[in-house]
């Protein structure tokens, strides 16, 4: 492997495949290196793939890609131990072209997507770990792999090696993450009859539903749970900041069991059979945890550069857009014959100017805020459940009396002031 490529992309996930696809399409000689047996074999997500950013890479992909269900309803459950306040939006416009998003199973989808990059001319090699970047005179000029004579050279190396980007870290682009900058998510894929899924989730054929779970799903720890419908399986998972698990000494798989057995969730999954158990980290430090993402001869994309919008459970779309912009940048650099940091900085500028950077900045303080002030999840979600129960329980007391009781339940004047202040603060970090 002493050949020299225009670009080497490390990691065949949504970011890396997008980048390799567009590079090959633009005429570049590109090598895509994946450490797993096949693309997708190491990749995990809850399951929502966003149509727009995927179509920016492959128009009308939904006509042939292995997708599960187009999502027509998104529900949000604020959970207490034996209750939940739920709101949802269901819109049939999401059930037809051009669609909004889809559930996917990544092992299948990523293989299909990588095939598309190969069809464009990218060279994919699996079962290969990149051990380090080869740096000469401060410039990244290639990678060293775990294959015999495994050195490969390129004008640009694109790091799409995921949340555990040991490569970006070893280049000094970011420090080791702290436990409050990553969320540990565990999930199970549960087999359930297609018709049963449709009945339970109020769906027609080829419609899907996502439910995001807040509050008691994470026992009040900062994080969320999720329940997504696939064709004939459900994906049920729960993720919390690693710091939360450490602080509360909770085993992640026991938390997952807790969610599976929660009275608000159990009826949805009853009779289903677990098919796979998965654990993965999600980079949730946000904008403030993003390190350097461009250097001489190197660009960092996707999870490797912390591109996740935790508030809106978006990640794969940010990854794809970053991959696309990296490809665009490398093609421009190739034309100019200049692969310096200054030239490649085009990627960073485009990324931060677009929706990715805008959204990362918008929510830059949110994870930290909700970690610092646990009362949102611990106290306020139970509080709104009690208020809803009070208001909707017909027991002979007047609605005015009920409102009074709800106000009283909020606590002393001091506690009400604190609540008002917290609501204002929460508004400020997400506005």
């Amino acid at each position: 492997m002493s050949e020299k490529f225009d670009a080497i992309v490390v990691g065949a996930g949504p970011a890396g495949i997008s980048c390799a696809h567009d590079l090959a399409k633009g005429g570049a000689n590109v090598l895509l290196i994946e450490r797993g047996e096949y693309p997708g074999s190491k990749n995990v997500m809850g399951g929502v793939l966003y149509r727009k950013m995927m179509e920016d890479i492959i128009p009308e992909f939904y006509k042939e890609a292995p997708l599960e269900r187009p999502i027509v309803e998104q529900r949000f459950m604020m959970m207490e131990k034996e209750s939940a306040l739920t709101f949802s939006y269901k819109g049939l416009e999401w059930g037809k072209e051009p669609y909004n998003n889809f559930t996917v199973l990544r092992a299948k989808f990523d293989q299909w997507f990588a095939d598309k990059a190969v069809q464009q001319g990218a060279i994919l090699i699996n079962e290969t770990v990149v051990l380090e970047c080869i740096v000469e005179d401060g410039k990244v000029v290639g990678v060293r792999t775990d294959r015999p004579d495994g050195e490969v050279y390129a004008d640009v190396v694109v790091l799409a090696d995921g949340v555990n980007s040991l490569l970006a870290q070893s280049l000094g682009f970011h420090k080791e993450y702290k436990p409050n900058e990553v969320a540990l998510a565990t999930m199970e894929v549960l087999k359930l009859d297609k018709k049963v899924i449709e009945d339970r989730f109020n769906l027609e054929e080829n419609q899907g539903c996502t439910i995001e779970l807040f509050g008691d799903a994470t026992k009040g720890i900062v994080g969320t749970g999720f329940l997504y419908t696939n064709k004939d399986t459900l994906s049920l998972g729960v993720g919390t900041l690693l710091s939360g698990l450490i602080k509360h000494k909770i085993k992640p798989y026991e938390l997952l069991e807790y969610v599976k057995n929660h009275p608000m969730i159990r009826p949805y999954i009853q009779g289903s059979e677990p098919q796979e158990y998965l654990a993965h980290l999600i980079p949730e430090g946000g904008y403030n945890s993003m390190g350097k993402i461009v250097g001489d001869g190197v660009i960092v994309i996707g999870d490797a550069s912390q591109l996740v919008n935790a508030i809106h459970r978006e990640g794969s779309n940010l990854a794809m857009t970053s991959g696309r912009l990296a490809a665009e940048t490398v093609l421009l650099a190739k034309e100019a014959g200049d692969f310096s940091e200054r030239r490649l900085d085009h990627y960073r500028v485009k990324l931060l100017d677009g929706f990715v950077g805008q959204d990362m900045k918008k929510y830059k303080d949110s994870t930290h805020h909700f970690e610092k002030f646990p009362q949102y999840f611990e106290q306020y979600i139970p509080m709104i459940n009690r208020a809803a129960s009070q208001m909707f329980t017909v027991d002979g007391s007047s609605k005015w009396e009920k409102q009074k009781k709800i106000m009283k339940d909020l606590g002393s004047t001091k506690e009400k002031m604190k609540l008002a202040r917290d609501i204002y603060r929460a508004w400020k970090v997400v506005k």
Partner: protein
Amino acid sequence: MGEQKNAQSIEAKQYLVRFNADTKSHLHVKDEDICLTQCPDKICTIFCPAEIYKWEDIRMHVGYEGCHECGSCRIGCPHQNIRWEYPKGGHGIVFRLA
């Protein structure tokens, strides 16, 4: 329904996953002594999603074969006492579905 069907325990959950384990570990406790003398909580035995880390009286047993390669132990170890690498290409966990 039996335990297997519900996959309640971590052993049952791990049974659902395909692994192609390497013959040598990609996880290393840097200094065994730190676990023994400076780490009363041994929190890695709690937060590891695959229960890879098990305390055996005086030493940490690392069952790397069932590792999900999530990286939590490297980040969560309060003493930064875990050297974490990727398993050799093609080895380790093989997700078949999600």
